[in-house]
């Protein structure tokens, strides 16, 4: 083999394992992002234990449990999609991916209803500009109706943490749509399923984060 041929081969070499390890490194940064949220939650919870419990009572455990089961089911269908792809059953892999997207969307719709119920009770995230214009919620703005500090903190953290998580669900679902398109085109196939695998890893991590969000907001009231 000539030296040039060796170089060309080296250039086209694709290290699937290295790519996967690199993707795990990215997932660790996600872990740190949510880890910081969890630290803030932990510190404020210990400082305002009773207020956190009172505010958490207002969250619906049934809705939280339903969403947890939906997300776990979506993790199962995601694994099955990759299994099917690696077994050469492309059609099954596509169906499983579509179901996963559907379950992710269902999660978001339920989350949307849940947030809406909170908005109806004048609980939402407000900017300092909105407060300055007098558009803030009386429950969250200094005044006679304002909730205790701990409850204001709880709802703020609830919207920020479930919101950041929901953003990840949206990114995951959009990514699945792109992967679905690439499978249809044939560029993702049983011999080249790395993108589907990494999309799955991302989706499972989003599930892992929800596994911790769920008890902290819906169970330890």
């Amino acid at each position, binding site marked *: 083999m000539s030296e040039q041929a060796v170089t060309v081969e080296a250039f086209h070499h694709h290290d*699937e*394992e290295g790519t*996967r*390890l690199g993707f*795990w*490194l990215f997932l*660790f940064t996600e*872990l*740190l992002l949510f*880890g910081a949220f*969890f*630290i803030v939650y*932990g*510190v404020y919870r*210990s*400082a305002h*234990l009773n207020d956190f*419990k009172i505010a958490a009572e207002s969250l619906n*455990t049934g809705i939280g*449990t339903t969403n*947890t*089961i939906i997300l*776990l*089911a979506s*993790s*199962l269908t*995601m*694994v*099955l999609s990759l*299994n*099917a792809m*690696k*077994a*050469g*059953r492309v059609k*099954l892999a596509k169906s499983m991916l579509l179901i996963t997207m559907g379950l992710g969307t269902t999660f978001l719709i339920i989350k949307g209803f849940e947030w809406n119920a909170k908005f109806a009770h004048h609980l939402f995230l407000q900017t300092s500009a909105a407060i300055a214009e007098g558009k803030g919620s009386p429950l969250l703005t200094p005044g006679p109706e304002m909730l205790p500090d701990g409850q204001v903190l709880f709802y703020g953290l609830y919207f920020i943490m479930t919101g950041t998580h929901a953003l990840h669900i949206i990114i995951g679902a959009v990514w699945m749509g792109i992967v679905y398109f690439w499978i249809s085109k044939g560029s993702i196939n*049983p*011999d080249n*399923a790395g993108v589907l695998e990494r999309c*799955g*890893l991302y989706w*499972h*991590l989003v*599930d*892992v984060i929800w*596994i*911790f969000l*769920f*008890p*902290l907001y819906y*169970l*330890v*009231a």
Partner: protein
Amino acid sequence: MNTKEQSFSPRGSIIVFSALIFLTIATVLLSGLDIGNAGALIIAMSVAAVKAGLVLYFFMHLNHEPLIFKLFVALAIITLATLFLLTFSDYAFRGIA
């Protein structure tokens, strides 16, 4: 990973999924018990840790990855745990001295 000869076998994943659902229902039922704040938090977080472990190990295929992957994940978790430990030990002792 050699992928060609692999056959589609959903059994293992369905068993893991069933365990996850069981743990979810268990943790919801256990949260109804009146065992005080610390106890409830420890139980809820322990169940969550087991569930997360199942997802990481089986769904994220750490069971099929080489040792270096497992070491990396362990290191990431230890780093996060250290951050938690340092922050909370700081807050726990504020206002005492």
